[in-house]
């Protein structure tokens, strides 16, 4: 037990040390959301008009882009596993008396903290976009970002434990990341789309993360929320769903890491 705990913080500590030391990664992970915000925001806001009462397109998209930031920085936890294996450092960790479970938890915790740091940076934009921001909103965001990030880090580590090369992992992430983002209701509400698209979106776990964050910022009852079988999901339900998924992903990653060596 002590070993799992020590493994978690030691591995997470290194992730953060590396994140802080790598400015290019910091900037590049904020680049994509900013690009979408700028181009899609400029292109669609006027054309579409308000999507709901007092919600224009940029305000609609902004919470989704926060979820997207969480996605990219969380998947990086998986990337760092592949990276460590390729550069040999994984061996140093594997042979330390910290246990595989601690390594997985540490990578996930590191990914979560990095995701959190990036979300905080994104929050700086809120006032400029006339998105409401208050201490209450930030506090409500904390648990959602944590469960979402754990789920996505778990996914990244799970995939990474079967990957031998960076290239392989990157290809897979590219294949995964765009459908995940585009079908998660980041750019358009998923309650007013053709059935096939609605079904895919509602299977996509990121949808619930996006919607929960959106409800935190813009409030519930705008008519933009995700409904499953006629029931409109509340923030708590969505966070719980993502949380359960996170548990499954993390458990899967732990099993994959502990499998016969």
């Amino acid at each position, binding site marked *: 037990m*002590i*070993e799992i705990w*020590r*493994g978690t*913080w*030691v591995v997470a*500590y*290194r992730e953060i*040390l*590396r994140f802080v*030391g*790598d400015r290019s990664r910091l900037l590049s992970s904020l680049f994509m959301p900013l690009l979408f915000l700028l181009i899609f925001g400029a292109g669609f806001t006027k054309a579409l008009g308000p999507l709901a009462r007092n919600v224009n397109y940029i305000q609609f998209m902004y919470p989704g882009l926060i979820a997207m930031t969480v996605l990219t920085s969380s998947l990086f936890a998986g990337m760092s596993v592949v990276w460590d*294996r390729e*550069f*040999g*450092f*994984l*061996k*140093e*960790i*594997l*042979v*330390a*008396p*910290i*246990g595989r479970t601690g390594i997985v938890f540490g990578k996930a915790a590191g990914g979560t903290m990095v995701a959190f740091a990036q979300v905080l940076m994104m929050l700086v934009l809120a006032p400029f976009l006339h998105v409401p921001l208050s201490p209450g909103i930030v506090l409500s965001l904390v648990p959602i970002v944590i469960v979402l990030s754990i789920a996505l880090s778990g996914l990244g580590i799970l995939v990474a434990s079967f990957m*031998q090369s960076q290239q392989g992992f990157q290809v897979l992430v590219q294949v995964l990341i765009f459908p995940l983002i585009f079908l998660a209701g980041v750019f358009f509400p998923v309650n007013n789309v053709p059935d096939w698209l609605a079904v895919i979106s509602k299977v996509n776990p990121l949808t619930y993360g996006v919607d929960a964050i959106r409800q935190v910022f813009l409030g519930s009852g705008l008519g933009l929320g995700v409904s499953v079988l006629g029931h409109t999901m509340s923030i708590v339900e969505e966070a719980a769903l993502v949380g359960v998924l996170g548990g499954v992903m993390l458990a899967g990653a732990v099993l994959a890491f502990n499998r*016969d*060596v």
Partner: protein
Amino acid sequence: MIEVRDLARRFGKLEAVKGVSFTVEEGEVFGFLGPNGAGKTTTINMLCTLLKPTSGSATVNGFDVRRNRSDVRRSIGLVFQQSTVDEYLNAEQNLRFHGYAYGMPHALRESRIKDLLTMVELWDRRRGNVRAFSGGMKRRLEIARGLLHHPRVLFLDEPTLGLDPQTRRHIWDYLNELRRREGLTIFLTTHYMDEAENCGRIAIVDHGSIVALDTPDGLKDKVGGDVVTIATADNQAAADAIRGTYKIEPILQDGVVRFHVPAGETFLPDFVLRFPQRLLSVGLRRPTLDDVFLAMTGREIRDSELDERDQMLQGMRGWGR
């Protein structure tokens, strides 16, 4: 310090290690000598708890490598074949990370970091970018890191692979000093014969089995004394003549006839005088571990290297590499 009984590991159909047994005493330098693909790294990985044995048992520092993994890990330090330092951290951070991972108390950790970095002459470069380190510096850093948590056994997997001779000698100076200072047990694998000479005892491994185990001198004595090589116009006839006169089995190789005799200095003058053919050249030397390997396996160590494809497969097999 290390006890191994019938340890075996197979990967699918391939038997990488076929039931090896040996004991390493405390404070000993014990070497595994053999060509690439002989099962050296597989054995080390099993002893280090990175790989589960298919059968057999092993204990390190009294702890079972299957059941008491954490205790084994705490008892050992490791220097791998490929570099495993984190190039994004500096030298000091690499050691500090290691100290955290092994749960070392703060004061002990910091003083040990200073001691070891000073010993491997990297203290001045402690904040330096590891990416800019030379191969020898990285290896020294890894040795320092492997020793940080006061292990009882240091495992070195091809510790000087790819380093120039001067750096290799340098690294051995450190290792010998450590052994003197800390009573460290060292287990190493190598396919350099001269490196194996540093060992107290050597196990010669080939195709996953130990074919001989003794001190370097003991092994050399086993091959039957000094090595005589001669070249003549007709080597086959020369070999027949030697076999007939001296009842020795010579080996024909690379255009020379080679055979072993005890006390070569007194043998040679008489031999040259009496030999029926004209001799083109005569050589006499003490046996090396190369000769031992040749005598035990019938091949030279460099001929036994796996081809590239085999090595690649081997590399892919180890999860975590």
